[in-house]
């Protein structure tokens, strides 16, 4: 028997997805996340599904351990050794501020100033070493950092992307005396121009190293103790997996691990169902997270800020977040305008209906009052029932009374405004990437998204929504699906005219060698191996680069030499597609080379998740009054997982499953496809 297990540890729940590769049988489990040590919930969740770990081939983990350590500032005490004159780069950022208006707030970097030590050394932008690194000073600085209790150290030198020699010599000297493996140089982590982004990424990586490697070691040991002899992999922010040794070396790459896995699963589900263009909407307690998949590929962002001033530059699945989740609070401002969020009741105390102390109405409270959520069977199973009356009173007091609306009108108003904001996020995300959202399908996931899917179709003009069969465990499923992927970058900074294509080929070859070696070292089976090259290019004078795919063949691991003409043609094609026109006589520049080495893991057939047998009648569990557009409607309730393939349900209807409620609005039809997804479309479409 061979099994794969995906485990996603979220803020509230730990989800486990178990796939038997031979039979195709899948099972899911949801257990509470344990804090501060998430390994308890992790192991508990697996134990619910699997008695004997010896039959498990692969465990893939989507983790928030790194994200939480960053957000809560719970990383290690670390030091940095940097170029004379530049100790404050981490603290000066790019001269930004937390909010446009108000001029309030300050910033504490993760490395305080007395742990940022300078040494004599300097490399110029063209790679010339102007001042060789003073290794005595480096050793003395490292000793000082050790004496001051640092558990990790990063070497951050100016222009190390252009020539890593000084950094390499310094890091070698430090490794010789540092008592643990947590020593790194900025050019090892990110050999890319832009000192703040590179230093920040390297410093945050060092900050996470002791924490994340300790966590992964604990999990690894516990799995081994349980009889597990397979491979343990970690999901990266780029949506690919990596081995634990890589994760311990580059923990900063896990910053968006869990959400990235969710988008990977969404892409696979949508593609299987016949849709290459999909916008995902993950609605949780405090936020609504939107991601876009075009032509079957998720969009990657080059960097993100985990918090103000905490920039991580590594390719990551682009996810846009707005503060409109189930727990977002509805309030009327002094000017009489209804607002949703950004303040949130989260999951504790949670919506008023949870009866845990919050008295201000939330989006979930509006759904409860309108009958869209069953008060007798709350999701997650923690509460016995929801307090509808308390939710109604809160809506009355805080929204109905100030606006002169009845309770039901006020509840509908809350949803209307929340839906409008969510729709706005979908529009903006697509517009910013140059896409028309109407050409996309919408895929809600997370606990609350499927309650709002109909509204998104209406507001954005999208033709259909795909509700996955298990929307509450999408990220765990994504862990099982994700490919193995390594990203590499190297700043080139050369005009195309003077480009040294041999040198470029050598860097490409180095990336490919390193990437393929990592694939070779993995025990996973790969269906295929793929190498993608991209150049960040722009006209001289323009700072925004475009990502230009470079079709260079790799045969038996050997990279063919790129040509200047080929690079220029690729740039012109991409530039024209992006901006509509080329610049006459513009000089083109290659800023960075990006390489992705991907091992395609076999995808399991989602049809194995589909229901077998069943009937519409048997799935129907009853009906209740639900409020839509000013009226109560007697609304059929179905047990969603019992609905047969091909079932068609006309709205209004509610489909219930343990962790999600799917709302089929009046005027919509829900159809169960051959994978068990529910496809929502306007009636008659």
């Amino acid at each position, binding site marked *: 028997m061979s099994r794969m297990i995906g485990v996603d540890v979220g803020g509230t729940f730990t989800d486990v997805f178990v796939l038997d590769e031979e039979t195709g049988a899948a099972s899911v489990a949801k257990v509470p996340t344990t804090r501060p040590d998430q390994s308890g919930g992790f192991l508990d969740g697996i134990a619910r599904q699997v008695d004997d770990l010896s039959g498990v081939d692969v465990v893939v983990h989507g983790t928030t351990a790194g994200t939480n350590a960053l957000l809560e500032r719970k990383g290690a005490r670390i030091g940095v050794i940097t170029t004379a004159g*530049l100790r404050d780069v981490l603290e*000066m950022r790019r001269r930004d501020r937390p909010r446009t*208006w108000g*001029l309030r707030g300050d910033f504490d970097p993760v490395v305080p100033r007395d742990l940022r030590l300078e040494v004599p050394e300097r490399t110029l932008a063209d790679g010339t070493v102007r001042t060789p690194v003073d290794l005595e000073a480096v050793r003395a600085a490292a000793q000082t950092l050790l004496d001051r209790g640092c558990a990790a150290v990063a070497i951050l030198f100016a222009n190390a992307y252009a020539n890593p020699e000084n950094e390499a010599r310094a890091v070698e000297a430090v490794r010789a005396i540092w008592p643990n493996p947590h020593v790194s140089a900025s050019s090892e982590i990110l050999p890319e121009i832009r000192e703040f982004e590179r230093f920040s990424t390297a410093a945050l990586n060092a900050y996470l190293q002791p924490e994340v490697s300790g966590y992964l070691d604990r999990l690894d040991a516990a799995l081994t103790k349980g009889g597990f002899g397979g491979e343990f992999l970690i999901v990266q922010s780029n949506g690919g997996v990596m081995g634990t040794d890589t994760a311990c070396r580059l923990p900063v790459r896990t910053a968006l691990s869990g959400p990235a896995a969710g988008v990977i699963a969404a892409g696979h589900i949508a593609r299987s169902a016949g849709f290459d263009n999909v916008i995902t909407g993950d609605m949780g307690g405090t936020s609504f997270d939107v991601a876009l998949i075009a032509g079957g590929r998720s969009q990657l962002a080059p960097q993100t800020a985990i918090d103000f001033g905490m920039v991580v530059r590594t390719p990551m699945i682009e996810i846009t977040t707005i503060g409109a989740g189930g727990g977002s609070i509805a309030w009327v401002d002094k000017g009489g305008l209804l607002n949703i969020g950004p303040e949130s009741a989260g999951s504790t105390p949670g919506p008023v209906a949870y009866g845990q102390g919050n008295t201000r109405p939330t989006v979930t409270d509006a759904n409860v009052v309108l009958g869209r959520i069953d008060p007798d069977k709350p999701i997650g199973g923690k509460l016995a029932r929801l307090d509808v009356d308390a939710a109604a009173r809160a809506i009355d007091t805080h929204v109905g009374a100030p606006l002169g609306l009845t309770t039901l009108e006020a509840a509908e108003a809350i949803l*209307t405004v929340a839906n409008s904001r969510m729709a706005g996020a979908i529009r903006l995300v697509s517009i910013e990437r140059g896409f028309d959202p109407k050409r996309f399908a919408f895929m809600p996931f997370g606990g609350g998204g499927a309650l709002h899917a109909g509204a998104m179709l209406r507001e954005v003009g999208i033709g259909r929504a795909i509700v996955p069969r298990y929307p509450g465990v999408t990220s765990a499923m994504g862990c099982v699906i994700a490919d193995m992927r390594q990203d590499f970058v190297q700043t080139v*900074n050369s005009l195309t005219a003077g480009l040294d294509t041999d040198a470029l080929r050598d860097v490409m070859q180095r990336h490919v060698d390193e990437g393929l070696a990592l694939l070779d070292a993995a025990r996973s089976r790969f269906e295929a191996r793929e190498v993608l090259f991209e150049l960040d290019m722009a006209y001289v004078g323009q700072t925004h680069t475009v990502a230009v795919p470079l079709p260079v063949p790799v045969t038996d691991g050997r990279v063919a030499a790129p040509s200047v003409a080929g690079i220029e043609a690729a740039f012109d094609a991409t530039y024209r597609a992006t901006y509509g026109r080329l610049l006459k006589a513009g000089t083109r520049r290659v800023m960075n080379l990006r390489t992705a080495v991907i091992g395609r893991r076999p995808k399991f057939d989602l049809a194995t998740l589909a229901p077998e047998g069943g009937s519409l009648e048997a799935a129907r569990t009853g009906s209740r009054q639900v409020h839509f557009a000013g009226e109560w409607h007697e609304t059929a309730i179905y047990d969603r997982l019992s609905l047969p393939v091909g079932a068609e349900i006309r709205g209004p209807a509610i489909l219930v499953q343990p962790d999600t409620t799917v709302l089929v609005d009046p005027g919509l039809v829900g159809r169960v496809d051959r994978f068990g997804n529910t496809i929502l479309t306007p009636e008659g479409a």
Partner: protein
Amino acid sequence: MSAAIDPITLAVLAGRMEQIADEMDATLFRAAFNPIIAEAHDASHGLYHAVTGDTLVQGKAGLPIFVGVMSFAVKAVIDKAAEAGDLADGDIYIFNDAHMGGTHLSDMRLVRPYFRDGKLFCYLASVGHWHDVGGAVPGNYNPSATEAFQEAFILPPVKLVRAGVLQQDIVDILLRNTRLPQSAQGDLNGQLGALDLGVRRLDELLDDYGTDTVRAALDALQDRAEALMRAELSGLPDGRWEATDYLDNDGITDTALPIRVALEIAGDRMVLDFAGTAPVTAGPVNIARPTAVATAYVAIKHIFPDLPANAGVMRPIEVRVPEGSLLAAEFPAPVGGYTETILRMIDVIFSAAAQAAPDRVVANAYGTINALSIAGKRANGQRWVMFSFYGGGHGGSSESDGLNHGNAPISTATIPPMEILEAAYPVMFRQWALRPDSAGAGAHRGGLGAVYEIELLEEKAEAFLFGERGRFAPQGVAGGAPAAKNVFHYEQADGWHSPPLASKMLGIKLQKGQAVRLETPGGGGYGAPADRAPEAVARDVALGYLTPEAATEAYGPAWQEVRP
């Protein structure tokens, strides 16, 4: 008053219209060629009233100063069109004349009337800072200009597009008058694209909701913004508070120039009276009246950050700008250094408002943009110009110390990475660091300013600086102390020198291996220094934000007795 509109539709439309402006911003940021727009977001978009030009809705991502000033640009077009009597659907006006549209000549404004069913419904506008618009100095910060003609070419409102037809003649004139025609063409295309998108989105919105409903919503949002502002003012004590601060000089004559405000609150109204401010100057620290009014708006928005960005906010506020003052300069007085003057206006408004409501107001930020350019020719004859603004400290507040190395209150621009500058220009930064002892002391101290020391790697070059705060320090509030002043030095064969006009100088000749050194102010302190915990002072000393001597001088010796 507006026609009744139900509160739900209003809340939805508020978001939808704001999003139209946000999408226009996003369109230009993505398409713009020059980094001042693409990276620093020195641009703005919005919807404006068909008759008054008042700001109806403005994007959130654009530059703060534009939030108030764009309505004047639209009004200039409204007046021009009324005079000519030929406004048509599909027209787009373009101009950069700062005396009509505010700010400076680098800001290119495009204004497009939006017609619905054959009737003018509103205006859409796009403004963006172009990289170069001619004039005597590349990048257009000319500290010795005495007329606008020396700052840039000047374009009054003209039709760039007539009833949908692009006037190539106008484009040709524009492109012949800039040192960077490719960049200008790219930015112009981006701005036209943003306006096109705005029209499409507005079409959709009006299709969905109807003209009357949207108009009613726009009116209602103004009324509600006004109500919010009145509620805020009613919560403040009545009274009159004054504050005076100074510009170092006008770049021509070394005479301090007072900027004075009297802030008066009576019930739900406020008056900002700038009587007593210095008269128009020969050098370019003047501003046009629209800029002055818009600056008052920026200061108010910082004090009340949750207020919406529309003209309703300003209805209860009267801004009195005295005739003949440097805040109401007439054409062709030079206005290229407007950033310095409006920063000082914001400082005095904060200083006055802090007397009325200390918890609501932060201390002065560093207060100068420090436009520094270094220019020369490479060995191959190619010309280079490195032009950037530099950061400083923010003021302390009731909540926390000020931010170290922030951007200016009128801007949200980030600084280019040092490595990008070193890769593009023959310079090396010897230092890019926080400046110890630069923060104003206080219960919550100011943020630290910065030190930038830049060495020339080519044979020779010239440096130009347009800065301020070299003679008058950023002030604290609520008993907080002032920050350190701006300091600039340049290296010559015989050692280091500083400019006779403190922070302004043209044509500083540098040889290979020589450097310029800019030390920017921190932010002012908030609250009495005696109220700062000795542990916090000790921590500042341990981290090197403060030298021991300066710590004892500002806070007394108590910090020496405690552990940080």
